[in-house]
């Protein structure tokens, strides 16, 4: 990230009022303001999570997690939504993880700074910025209609995969770049080819960082609703999907449905679904954080 030269006027700005009598006072007020800002930003996060935990916990039971919805989803469990979300995560792992890591290897190990490489980087930045609902449109146009996959797990996970790709590529590339150059030099001097060096040395060292990226990518995919709205999500299914060409229920879409589309929905079930979704996301976040900090502590270079 860049920094800029200070203009001379900025320096004289400081020089002008170095010993203004109330500058300590101003500093104290300024710091208090910034601290308050940080609190205003972070307290609601804690509040939200604790609140959902408290409200949702009574709804969670073995039956809730392992049975089908009943009475127009107003009772019973959410098993199909949980399984559906797992299937989608599995789909994303199959498509996005190998592709994302390979792309990161290309950018970190092979690509030199050419106009083409810069174009790839701009493309990745753009992929990261495209609104999720536009991914949904794209998935509908390409996978559901053009390739004729129908509204299916396959179409939804392919759509989610492309959306997740930039997250995986950029974190994995960063992880690969932190491996010291000397590792590669030594490996090459022992007669290893470039790919052998990457596979046995670089990838092994960068693994924790790559894993963190993969988990963060999956976390994003698991929580998204808009891309699966018209590519694979089903309002209600009386059974589990049994092929990749079936539509599926999913936790985020289910939460959307029961909080906006179903009248007289017991609020406890809504909080229960929110908590289950949150549990997925928080667990992945926690795992990623633990892997990252453990790898940092263990690192010897």
């Amino acid at each position, binding site marked *: *990230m*860049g*920094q*800029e*030269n*200070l203009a001379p006027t900025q320096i004289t700005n*400081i020089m002008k009022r*170095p010993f203004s009598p109330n500058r300590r006072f*101003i*500093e104290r007020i300024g*710091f208090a*303001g*910034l*601290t308050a*800002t*940080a609190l205003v*930003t972070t307290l*609601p*996060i804690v509040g939200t*999570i604790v*609140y959902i935990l408290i409200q949702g916990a009574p709804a969670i039971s073995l039956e809730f997690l392992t049975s089908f919805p009943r009475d127009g989803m107003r009772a019973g469990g959410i098993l199909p939504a949980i399984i559906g979300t797992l299937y989608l995560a599995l789909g994303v792992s199959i498509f996005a993880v190998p*592709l994302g890591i*390979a*792309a990161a290897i*290309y*950018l970190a190990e*092979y690509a030199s700074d050419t106009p083409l490489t810069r174009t790839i980087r*701009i*493309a990745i*930045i*753009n*992929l990261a*910025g495209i*609104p999720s*609902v*536009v991914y*949904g*449109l*794209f998935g509908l*146009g390409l996978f559901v209609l*053009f390739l004729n996959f129908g509204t299916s797990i396959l179409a939804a996970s392919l759509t989610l995969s492309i959306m997740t*790709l*930039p997250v995986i590529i950029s974190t994995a590339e960063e992880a690969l770049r932190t491996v010291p150059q000397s590792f590669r030099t030594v490996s090459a001097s022992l007669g290893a*080819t*470039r*790919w052998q060096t990457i596979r046995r040395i670089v990838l092994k060292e960068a693994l924790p960082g790559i894993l963190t990226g993969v988990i*963060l990518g999956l976390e*994003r995919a*698991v*929580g*998204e*609703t808009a891309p699966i709205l018209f590519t694979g999500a089903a309002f209600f299914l009386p059974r589990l999907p049994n092929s990749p060409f079936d539509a599926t229920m999913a936790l985020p879409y289910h*939460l*959307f449905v029961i*909080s*906006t589309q179903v009248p007289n929905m017991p609020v406890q079930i*809504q909080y229960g679904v*929110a908590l289950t*979704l949150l549990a997925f996301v928080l667990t*992945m976040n926690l795992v990623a954080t633990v892997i990252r900090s453990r790898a940092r502590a263990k690192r010897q270079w």
Partner: protein
Amino acid sequence: MEKSLTWREFIVTRAIQASGYSAIVFVTLIFFFLLREGAPALTDVKLSALFSARWYPIEDYFGILPLITGSLVVTIGAMLIAFPLGIGTAVYISEIAPRWIREILKPLVELLGGLPSVVLGFLGILLVSPFLRSFLDLPTGLTAFTGSLLLGGIAVPTIVSVAEDALDAVPRSYREGAWALGATRWQTIWYVTLPAAKSGVLTAVMLGVGRAIGETMTVMMVTGNAPVLATALGSWFAPARTMTATIAAEMGEVANGSAHYHVLFFIGIVLFLISLGVNVAASSVVFHAKKRAERILS
């Protein structure tokens, strides 16, 4: 043995190269398929009708202006909230907070970035909008302002992490120079560190705008979804409808190939171009600044 090794090397290298190019392929594919389904909107609906002020698809009124103003109102509102909070938090984390507080705050903000937008929308319906309705004495709590408030929360993590990176990249010697001149830490932040990180902060804000304008589920759930042309400040406290929410809410119910279907894809093209513009602008600021930084440091 030797030969199979070179072959494998060759194939693997090619596969990796192809994966590297995939990002370009996907962006092109996305644009192509949006065009393919969205361009016919221009023949289905007259251009003047498309940019008119009435969105009522059942009677074939496809004016997308109210949707564009809806997105603008909600996004500008979100940035008014997220900009001070995000930059303030970034400065606090990078310049003031003791180490242990930083270690707590950073993952917390990251966590907010990971919260599914549908969960925020859900809380918006159940908590935020009833509260705003009684607090501000409005006829409904589902307004553009409610959307802005929650979108602000969604844009904050983006702004914090990018701005904090930018502040971190300011060399320590700049700060030491200011301290040596007798500046307080506050003066240093205000007159030295923040100006030096200006371009990174700008990037942060732009990426935040991109994040806010593209957000779908939260705004669809809490803004009331009324396609009314925003003309006055009062529109902020009335129901609104964004481009993203319109696509999400209506795509499920249209017949493939109808005018309505094409227009929804056309809105997708508009959104795609906006995000393209925002991101190219944001990244060119970064590239530009990097070059300058390299020149200074060398």
